[in-house]
């Protein structure tokens, strides 16, 4: 499972956690997160995230 970080606010999308409060189930791959999903912390688009190193 990979993690992606919002370049704007630092929020981390962790595939193993997903974003259940916004309809993204745990285990959802980044590629399957809808394009219109936005950062739950600052509202920027999916494109403004970058992959973090494996931890």
């Amino acid at each position, binding site marked *: 499972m990979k993690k992606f970080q919002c370049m*704007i*606010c*630092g929020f981390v999308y962790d595939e193993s956690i997903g974003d259940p*409060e916004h309809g993204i189930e745990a285990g959802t791959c980044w590629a399957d997160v809808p394009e219109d999903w936005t950062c*739950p912390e*600052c*509202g920027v688009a999916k494109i403004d995230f970058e992959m973090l190193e494996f931890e």
Partner: protein
Amino acid sequence: MNHEPVVIIGSGLAGYAVARELRKLESELPIIMLSADHGGFYSKPMLSNALSTGKTPDTILNGDAVKMAGQLKISIRPHCRVTAIDQSNNTIMLDDGEKLSYGQLVMALGADQICLPLEGNAASKVLSVNDLDDYRCFRDALVGKKQISIIGAGLIGCEFANDLVSADYQVHVIDIGAQPLGRLLPPAGGTFIQNKLEAVGVNFHLNTSTQCVEQVGERLHLTLANGETIESDIVLSAVGLRPRTKLAEMADIKVNRGIVVNQLLQTQSNNIYALGDCAEVEGKVLPFVMPITHAARAMAATLAGNPTPVHYPAMPVLVKTPACPTVVSPPDFSISGEWHVNVDQDGVKALFQDESSNLLGYALLGTATKEKNMLAAQLPPVLM
């Protein structure tokens, strides 16, 4: 629509957000970004927690001006200041004497750190961090030092305090108010975050102000209004922001606290716009990231020829203090209501409600932050 360029003054989050959103809608429209500094892209909120996230000024920079210009297919002019706007000719004057025409002009000027008048021979050595270049100076100054005093216990002061103690600096925070985050939190919340930050080593000096900063040898001595003195290596001022409005004022563009714009983010000149920390949208100055994201999307559509008013949903603000997770949705205090506060050992849940128990705002600290999304759904929009 005309194909005169869209000129964006400012390369902060707001300027870049507009450029990015507009480029998505208009692949060919010329976009020129003017920057007073290096013009590279970075996220300012990351400056206040860079030590604990292991970032340096170099890694905070996401892309320099050359890279960003290529990526967004825009022209970026670094180290370039605008000295005047000539509305009747749709031109701006640059500091090198050049005149530049615009079809539509976007002011994304940001805000200045407020600089308190201080006495003492070292008043000019007080640092503030408002951009990446400032932050670079601050990080350079930190090398080999131990004690930092921060003037101001607001959002930025508290975030820096937490970040610095996490990197083993000794930190003093001075504020004229009775509690940290006085403009955002009810007293119980202020006490809670104060206790949590004290537990990780932050020293608060509240209900007092800094009067004098004197250099004594290598060190700086602060004298507070209550008579206390603090010895420090570095003094950082973080007492608040003032929207940059001078350029607009000189061009007779209406200014109040910020540059006055309507819901289309237009000034009274319908091809001059403003957003971000410099703008006052329908009476609101909101110096946070979330409003910029919303404003940039609406503005880009308007600039592309599809007039789109900005709407703000509830926009809770995260305070990046890992010692005390905090989320605040500041209520519009012009609407009457009162705080209903629940405090326990692990958190504070403060709800600002009107007489009919409608939720108007909240402050959540510690474990109560878990409810932030559920409660945010009950909040009224900030701007319909």
